[in-house]
């Protein structure tokens, strides 16, 4: 594909901080190469704004390799833009056409307050993780290979759940701003492995409770989260979380209830 240059109209959400009201601001992006990533396009726009003495657009980014989960952005109605299975940093301007208007919004959720412009505070995810997304045993020395037998199929499934990068696209895509896909992936990665069994039911209860406390919505099974997840976390994780949670609450011995 040959490189093309395009001019775009951006409608960007500008908001000073959490406590002020934000609004959309129209900004022209001129001379954008089709080979740039979406974030590089924003860099060009920001350089322009800085040169004019204006406040650059504030957005989250880090590795720019699609593995850290830091970049966000709700682009033309979809988290991480129109492509599926990709983060915003891996979205290229060739997915857009010359003269197009692009609406850029932050993730919208009560549990993700806006820090500034397009960046939101995703520490709610950290608190859910801290509530039970760990194994509290001493790691000790390196165990012998195959000392703990794990069927390949389970190891693969646990690994797939563990690929969640915690970007929050599931929350952004869900019409209820529900965090079920994230929480269920974090519960599943331990629930599938022997090391996670000791605290399996405590973990499910604690993490679901923290998720509710943070103010994320409930699941309507629209599957929007699964469709928009950049790393392809599956909805079966949510079924597993429901199973573990309901199992703990209704079928386990009393001492396990939190």
């Amino acid at each position, binding site marked *: 594909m040959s490189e093309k240059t395009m001019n775009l109209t951006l*409608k960007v959400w500008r908001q000073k901080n959490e406590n002020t009201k934000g609004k*959309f601001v129209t900004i022209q992006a001129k001379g954008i190469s089709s080979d740039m990533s979406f974030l590089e396009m924003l860099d060009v726009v920001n350089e322009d704004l800085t040169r004019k003495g204006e406040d650059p657009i504030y957005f989250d980014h880090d590795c720019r390799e699609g593995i850290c989960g830091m970049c966000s952005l*709700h682009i*033309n*109605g*979809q988290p991480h833009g*129109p492509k*599926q299975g990709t983060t915003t940093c891996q979205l290229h301007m060739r997915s857009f056409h010359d003269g197009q208007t692009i*609406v850029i*919004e932050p993730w*919208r*959720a*009560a*549990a993700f307050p806006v820090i500034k412009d397009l960046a939101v505070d995703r520490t709610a995810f950290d608190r859910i993780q801290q509530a039970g997304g760990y194994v509290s045993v001493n790691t000790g020395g390196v165990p012998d290979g195959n000392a703990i037998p794990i069927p390949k199929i389970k190891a693969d499934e646990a690994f797939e759940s563990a690929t969640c990068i915690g970007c929050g696209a599931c929350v952004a*895509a869900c*019409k*209820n*701003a*529900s965090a079920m896909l994230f929480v269920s992936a974090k519960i599943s990665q331990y629930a599938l492995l022997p090391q996670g069994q000791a605290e399996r039911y405590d973990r499910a209860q604690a993490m*679901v*409770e923290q*998720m*509710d406390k943070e*103010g*994320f*919505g*409930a*699941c*309507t*099974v*629209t*599957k*929007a989260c699964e*469709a*928009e997840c950049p790393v392809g976390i599956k*909805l*079966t994780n*949510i*079924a*597993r*979380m*429901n*199973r*573990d*949670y*309901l*199992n703990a*609450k*209704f079928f386990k011995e009393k001492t396990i*209830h*939190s």
Partner: protein
Amino acid sequence: MSSFNRALTSTLGKKLIMSLTGLFLCTFLIVHLIGNLQLFKDDAGKAFNDYAYFMTHFPPIKAVSYLLYASIIIHAIYALILTIYNKKARPVAYASYAGNKNSTWNSRNMGILGTVLLVFIATHMANFWWKFHNDQVPYIEYRTDLSTLETQATEISAGDFIDYQKFTQDGEEITKARDLYKQVSYAFQNPLLVAFYVLAMAALSFHLIHGFRSAFQTLGFDHKKYVPIIRFLAVWIFGIIIPIAFAAMPLYFFFCK
């Protein structure tokens, strides 16, 4: 708060209640459909009226009917609670939202579909359930000649009707019943009501295609082999056969009676 209460008030607990009441309502639909198929029988409504009496007077069925009313109310109330809760989870809406790119229309609009169904249930019960229970339907007498098995039906006045009766006299079986069949036939002469019934059944189809299989997801059921069967049932039984069979009833009375 007890652990049990806490379990039911969590987001997963609320969805559990939606799932269980919803599945119970799904099983009710099957029974309701099979019973109502008697409307298509060309016997001046004898089988249907006998069935209507049985369904309203057999104690175990009466007990289940209260569970049914409770399920409808609980399902609707919890839907409202969850909708408000979910709205609160996103106080600022997106200016640009492409939901159709990542999810189906019916999965995003279960509340609207459910509201149509709730209005439908209220209309439906006012038309038939309320009138049947409050003596606002006509009365009928069937005389079946037991040697030829031919049945004669005559409308009788309220004065001639004391209660549902079935007895044999002079080689004839006599049945006196509330004529719900006539009420059904009468109600479905109204084109607006027929149109509303057909629309409501379309809403039912979309509601159940999503609802039936999602109820199993909520329960944590994701068996590799059985989930495709549940999807198949959701589409073919609850999404196509049941709504079409129900919609056929008003259309049959409107066009064929």
